């Protein structure tokens, strides 16, 4: 059973320069207890997708007519895009779905203590009394590994170090026992040592609470260590999806391959760093056909620039949106150079 089911999601933004497409025909599922990694460069539409799951996009967002976001919990099925009243959306935001952000400092109000914010959220989303909420908040701070949680409860976010703040943010997001946690680049602003601690913590919490996680990051290494499945986004489309092993070991889309080859590798210091050729096109100037054809080494004129490649399944849920995804990418790359 799917916890979060997204079908044919298209999001455009009304701007002075016309409608700008941010996300196009996106479909994916997240099961309870599953971690789905969403990878892509800046501008690929990762954050817009995540915000859509909680209807947090700005008012100028236009959802396509076929778009569907369905959340299935013990309370029933919610059609997220059909929610109209603020009161109904509150059931989703911070209730069934919680979000943690890249910059924890920006998510805590500077003039209210961390404890007060945690209690406020619990009073809105649960039936706890104030005293129960406080006890629960302190318990959550303790569980994410914050020393002296009862003292920390009365402190302000600026009194926390970066790693502590991110832990407190996770504690706050999980305190309402959400069914789905959206983590938008939760470790990007952290040092590697702290990042490793936060990754371990998140894994433990998935095992303990059994919620689904949408993990957004641009770091494939972080994905490899946290996610069960991964979806690679480029210019608002999922170009490749599958289990982490399938996608990282046998990338079939040249974009996925390019992301992996651009990474500096510690076991081969002499390997050249290979950037993906060209620049990401402006969203105002979206390529026709396959969105990646302007930077792709094997694109064929008259085909790739005209026809949008459908997502095809290569077995066990490994799906690739490329007209020429048959051979393993490594051999196709050599062919492209000739």
């Amino acid at each position, binding site marked *: 059973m799917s916890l979060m089911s997204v079908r044919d999601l298209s999001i455009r933004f009304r701007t002075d320069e016309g409608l700008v497409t941010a996300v196009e025909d996106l479909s994916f599922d997240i099961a309870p207890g599953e971690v789905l990694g969403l990878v892509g460069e800046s501008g690929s539409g990762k954050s817009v997708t995540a915000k859509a799951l909680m209807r947090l996009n700005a008012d100028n967002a236009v959802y396509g007519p076929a778009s569907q976001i369905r959340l299935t919990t013990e309370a029933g099925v919610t059609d997220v895009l059909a929610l109209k009243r603020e009161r109904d959306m509150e059931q989703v935001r911070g209730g069934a779905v919680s979000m943690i952000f890249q910059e924890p400092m920006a998510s805590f109000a500077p003039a209210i203590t961390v404890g007060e914010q945690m209690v406020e959220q619990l009073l809105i989303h649960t039936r706890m009394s104030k005293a129960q909420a406080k006890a629960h908040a302190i318990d959550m701070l303790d569980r994410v590994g914050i020393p002296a949680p009862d003292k920390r409860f009365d402190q302000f976010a600026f009194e926390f*170090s970066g790693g502590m703040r991110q832990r407190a943010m996770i504690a706050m997001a999980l305190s309402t026992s959400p069914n789905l946690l959206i983590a938008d680049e939760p470790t990007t602003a952290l040092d590697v040592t702290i990042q490793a601690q936060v990754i371990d913590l998140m894994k433990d919490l998935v095992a303990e609470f059994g919620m689904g996680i949408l993990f957004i990051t641009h*770091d494939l290494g972080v994905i490899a260590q946290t996610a069960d499945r991964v979806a690679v986004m480029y210019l608002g489309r999922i170009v490749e999806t599958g289990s982490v092993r399938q996608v990282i070991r046998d990338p079939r889309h040249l974009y996925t391959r390019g992301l992996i080859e*651009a990474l*500096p590798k*510690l076991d081969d210091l002499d390997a050249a*760093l290979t*950037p993906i050729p060209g620049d990401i096109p402006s969203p105002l100037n979206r390529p026709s056909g396959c969105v990646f054809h302007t930077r792709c080494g094997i694109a064929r004129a008259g085909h790739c620039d005209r026809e949008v490649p459908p997502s095809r399944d290569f077995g066990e849920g490994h799906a690739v949106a490329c007209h020429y995804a048959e051979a393993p990418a490594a051999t196709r790359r050599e062919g492209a150079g000739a």
Partner: protein
Amino acid sequence: MSQDPLIAARDLTVSYPLGRGLLGSRSKLNAVDGVSISIQRGQFFGLVGESGSGKTTLGRALLKAAPISAGTIAYRDGERSFDLTSLKGADLKDYRKRAQLIFQDPYAALSPRMTVRDIIAEPLEVMSLTKSRAETDERVREIAAKCRLNLEHLRRFPHAFSGGQRQRISIARALVSGPRFVVADESVAALDVSIQADVLNLLKQIQADMGIGFLFISHDLSVVAHVCDAVAVMYLGQIVEVAPTRSLFARPRHPYTSALFSAIPALDPDAPKTAEKLEGEIPSPANPPAGCKFHTRCRFAQDACKTSVPALREVAPGHRAACHFAADFDFSRPAASARSPR
């Protein structure tokens, strides 16, 4: 060590006052604490460490942009030599031309109201390095081409450019005065991996072409491993290990360096998990631990580490580490934790 480094710091300390304590005693924070470092001409020198380790402050001190509380910094590029502790007036102006900084955030570093041409030309005009507008334009075009900027881009404003192009503009501006020494402070940290690869390749090529000495500050060990000739690792204001890149990555001699390696997420989902995860966070530099500053987080720490400060001493050719047990233990990472898809 070779005899004639481009820039050499000796026992450098940068401290900031922390206000007055009881009885009017003044406490201070040593952001950089007795660091000795030397960078050769044309060397790509990496500096890594967690936030709060003093990397940026050290970089700024070498540019004479942070107060030098103790120690010396000597600069020698073959044409001019300066003692940075007493540098002022015309000499300081000359040093500004020879030592430049590339910033981290290409969005914040470029004025939105200036054209790309004016942004790149500004250092030349401010320092009066060119005599005519035609000469300025010539210099701007030359460096723009080196940084792979399209000449017709020069008339546009920065908002029209992507992160990678903006970083190339920042690099062009830093290089237009013909510096011999450049500090690049987290210059690729804000970029996507593909653009990061492009900018790193560009920096490396320019550095080789122009023979610039680079101090490359980064928190990303895998990036440093790829571009730098030598690397220094900083912790709480001190250098705990410094070595040629290969030697450092083949066998780290300080447990902190080793822990940094094992914290890098492996690209292989089945990579064996190392039990080396560093616990806790970097202590406050206002109240650093006694003895070896790393002992509070070190899994090899003994009683001696709590009281006696380890000296930075040579453990292999050109490889120095500040650990009492640098010669006794093998802290090196398991081979499989390296970042590799297969």
